């Protein structure tokens, strides 16, 4: 939540891996991840590419070198980081975002952009105004529901909708409309729908 409340142009990371359907960004600061389901964007020339944060990891910078437990003699968790300041440089936080649309001039299209995002593209957290604008259409739910994600849809979809609803004038109406959209999309997947609706409130 800290990130949502920070400056509107707050950069949350930089792309280190990109494909047509998603991109992975590394955070500048350890643990300063955008929340699951939040809307982020990156620029690609004229285009703004929007993504929804669907997975995040924090781990060792080097794949072969796993962190070890260090807190046996420390009083608190913070004390571990204070006594080993190198840790924040050896560890990193990454998140991946599913591409759910792009802005072309003034128009938001909720379908995939022609090209994937660029490596080293800056990733920004979308401010509430933009979130509200993006939420005018619910077509992005198709991408969200129909892509295989590392985390279950029953988690991502409600998380994204909950965050987006807070930026709307009438959050309840927004959630009902989204719920109805999902009910149609998941017509044959009743149990999934039920789980999502249960988490939407």
């Amino acid at each position, binding site marked *: 939540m800290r990130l949502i409340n920070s400056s509107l142009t707050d950069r949350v990371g930089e792309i280190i891996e990109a494909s047509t359907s998603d991109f992975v960004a590394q955070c500048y600061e350890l643990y300063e991840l955008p929340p699951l389901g939040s809307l982020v964007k990156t620029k690609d020339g004229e285009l703004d590419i929007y993504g929804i944060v669907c997975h995040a990891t924090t781990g060792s910078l080097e794949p072969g070198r796993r962190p070890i437990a260090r807190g046996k003699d420390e009083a608190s968790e913070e004390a571990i980081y204070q006594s080993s300041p190198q840790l924040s440089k050896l560890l990193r936080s990454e998140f991946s975002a599913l591409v759910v649309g792009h802005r072309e001039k003034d128009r938001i299209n909720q379908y995939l952009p022609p090209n994937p995002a660029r490596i080293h593209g800056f990733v920004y957290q979308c401010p509430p105004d933009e979130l509200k604008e993006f939420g005018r259409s619910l077509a992005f739910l198709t991408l969200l529901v129909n892509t295989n994600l590392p985390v279950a849809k029953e988690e991502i979809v409600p998380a994204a909708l909950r965050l987006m609803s807070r930026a709307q004038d009438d959050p*309840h109406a927004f*959630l*009902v409309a989204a*719920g*109805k959209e*999902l*009910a*149609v999309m998941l*017509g*044959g997947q*009743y*149990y999934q*729908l*039920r789980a999502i*609706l*249960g988490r*939407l*409130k």
Partner: protein
Amino acid sequence: MTDRLGVVVSGSLESGVEVKLDGTVSVEDMAVGRYVTIEGQKQRFFGMITDIGLGVIDPRFTLTPPDIADPFISEVLSGTSTYGTLHVLPMLTIAGDVDTLIEGPQPVKTVPSHFSAVNLASQQDVELVFGGEDEKRFYVGTPLDMETKICLDLPELVKRSNGIFGKSGTGKTFLTRILLIGMLQKSAAVNLIFDMHNEYGWAGTSEGGKSVKALKQLFPAKVAVFTLDEESSRRRKVSTDFVVRIGYDEIEPEDMSLLRQTLNLTEPAVEAIYQLRRRFGRDWLRQASDLTDSDETSQILNELSIHESTFQNLKRGLNSIRRLPFIEPHTPVNSVKSILEYLDRGMNVVLEFGRYTDITAYVLVANLLTRRIYAQYRERMEKAMAEDSAKPTPLVITIEEAHRFLNPEVASRTIFGTIAREMRKYNVTLLVIDQRPSGIDTEVMSQMGTKVTCLLDNERDIDSVLAGVSGKSALKSVLSRLESKQQALIFGHAVPMPVVIRTREYGSPQSYQELLTTGKAEGGEQAEKDIEELWG
């Protein structure tokens, strides 16, 4: 638009169309029998809701129902995964093609295209279909949940025989009274009412035991009350115009054959009547029942080849006829003639039966009088046709307990069967009131122009009323769900499509006033006079 209900999703002309309700419309707000309009691409359709159902997008919903106690879940699911369906029978096209523009609503010949919007019919739509009140149309009631007036085209109605059906206590009598008042005001026909229970002449009773005004109190100048039972009429303080008496010599063998069942006569006994009539002439009834057990009698019976037991059977029957107090050896005035005189003057005649509510008396008198009146009408009509002169005023004869006259066994023999079949050729039609329509001959039923039916719950009765109507199964569900009071389904000649009505109010001072002012709107001075007399 708040009146939008949903969209057409499937269907056929034969079976009606299926409508999926919008999520915002609650299935519980719908009602069978309500009117809807369907906005097709080229035409507007007018139809009636005949069934209401529930649907789910996935059968698993029914196996593990979602928790709809949660308002959010129920709001999301309603209209998407779970939805209401309506079955709508399109009946008329009310706008769009040339015919409709020129001639008004037309019967449907096609169905609306996929996903046409379905709306609740507005007041204007219903008025367009059933017409407003005017000099020909008479307001009989309102559609369910609407204030629009449903009006019947009465001159059109009386051109054919009509039926009013319904279980006992469902409001047949009230409905009949209202229709009779309508006919009296707007149809240019005269009525002859065989009033078995003394409900139509002076005063009737409502279900609550309250007395309501009947025809003569409302229209004294247009209605004459005839009675068979002067004493009863006097007791009820009815001012009668004529006391009907029937002479022995007025009873013909045809009148007797209709009474076969009620008098428990055998078939040979009925045959014997014809022979006795041939032998004794007009005075056969008195002479035959006066025959005593003598040699002379045996000789006569032998000559006529009537068996002794047959004769005894017949004699018992004849005696019970003679016991009827209004049957007299000789009558000074011819009742048929006086009824016709009144009818010719444009007066409507209500014949009260007083205490003689026994079915024998009713069948005998109704049949006897009607046969002669019909014969007169027939003669006049033929004469009028030959001479190209004025035809007699159309006559509507109202009979109760109609299945006694029109059951398959006797329908071919009675005058009522003939009238029902030959219909309007001779300007005489029937208004049949009955609670067991299944007892009425199918041929007669099929000839009825307009049928008005209150609640019926016997399967056979429902079938016989709806026989031959298109969309029968749909109407069946409407009919069996009518409320037991004040509601009726009207279909047939006088209405463009079947319609469920809530009968207009009858019995309060205001309702009388309304009925009388309708007459006034016609410009009739008489009605004005009537009102003056009534209200001072």
